[in-house]
């Protein structure tokens, strides 16, 4: 026999270490903060903070009274708490810079994830225009319409 059980185990580890992450390249840590989940999730999927730079999140939370055409204002304490959470894990929070910083200048602060160059590139080449007008999709903010595990931070099904 060429391989004993130890070799099999070692091979399994190698597969886990290199194989799995190679497929899992569109994953983000799911949001766990209960306030963020409750308040942001009342109207839309709870977007992962890694998808916008810190400046964007600040602008969004400061402008909740006119949030993409709706009044989504919160009391000051709740807003502060949510902003701190989003800014802490923002796309540009780490020294390496997240995927969503690709093509974005350090000073730009887009208000929509769907306006970032990374999101646009990932979707424009693969998603036909008609898909966006499907009533089941309704909005580009409805990630779950196509990425069924998006709320868990998993966008592998692209």
């Amino acid at each position: 026999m060429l391989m004993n059980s130890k070799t099999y185990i070692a091979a399994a580890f190698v597969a886990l270490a290199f194989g799995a992450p190679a497929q899992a390249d569109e994953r983000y840590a799911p949001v766990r903060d209960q306030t963020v989940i409750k308040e942001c999730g009342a109207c839309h999927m709870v977007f992962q903070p890694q998808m916008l730079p810190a400046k964007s999140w600040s602008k969004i939370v400061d402008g909740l009274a006119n949030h993409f055409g709706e009044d989504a204002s919160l009391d000051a304490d709740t807003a502060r708490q949510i902003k701190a959470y989003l800014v802490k894990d923002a796309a540009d929070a780490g020294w390496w810079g997240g995927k969503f910083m690709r093509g974005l200048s350090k000073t730009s602060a887009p208000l929509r994830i769907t306006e970032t160059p990374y999101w646009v590139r990932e979707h424009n080449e693969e998603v036909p225009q008609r898909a966006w007008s499907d009533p089941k999709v309704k909005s580009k903010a409805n990630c779950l319409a196509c990425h069924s595990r998006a709320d868990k931070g998993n966008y592998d099904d692209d």
Partner: protein
Amino acid sequence: MKIRIIVPLHPKLIIAVLALSLLPIQGSASELRQQIIAGFAQDAKLKNSGFAGFSAGRGQTLFLSKPATGKPDTPSCTTCHSINPAAKGQTRAGKEIAPMAVSKTPERFTDSKKVEKWFRRNCKSVLGRICTALEKGDFVTFMSNQ
């Protein structure tokens, strides 16, 4: 194998205990809702001494109206809640909204903070102003009957 009941329980007793244990849950939801409506009634009276109670009919008219005096994307309540209070709604971002009708969503209008928060936001979005106590009371009265 035969299962033996050690303590003899009269079936009527079991039913009575079960019924009693369910009562407080049912009672408290509608009690909380009544408290919220009573609060609106107090405020409505303060504003107008001739206040003669809330009207489900006026609440329905408000719900179905298309004021379009607020933000352009939300001209009416029904933009997101659909014209049928017993049906699910959908936010502009595509998320499902539980039916407004109390018969379908029994926990509706039982949390005063939540009620005030959503009236504040949605009245500003749809009407461009905050709602009066009369409007809020009418609205909750209408939805409670649905």
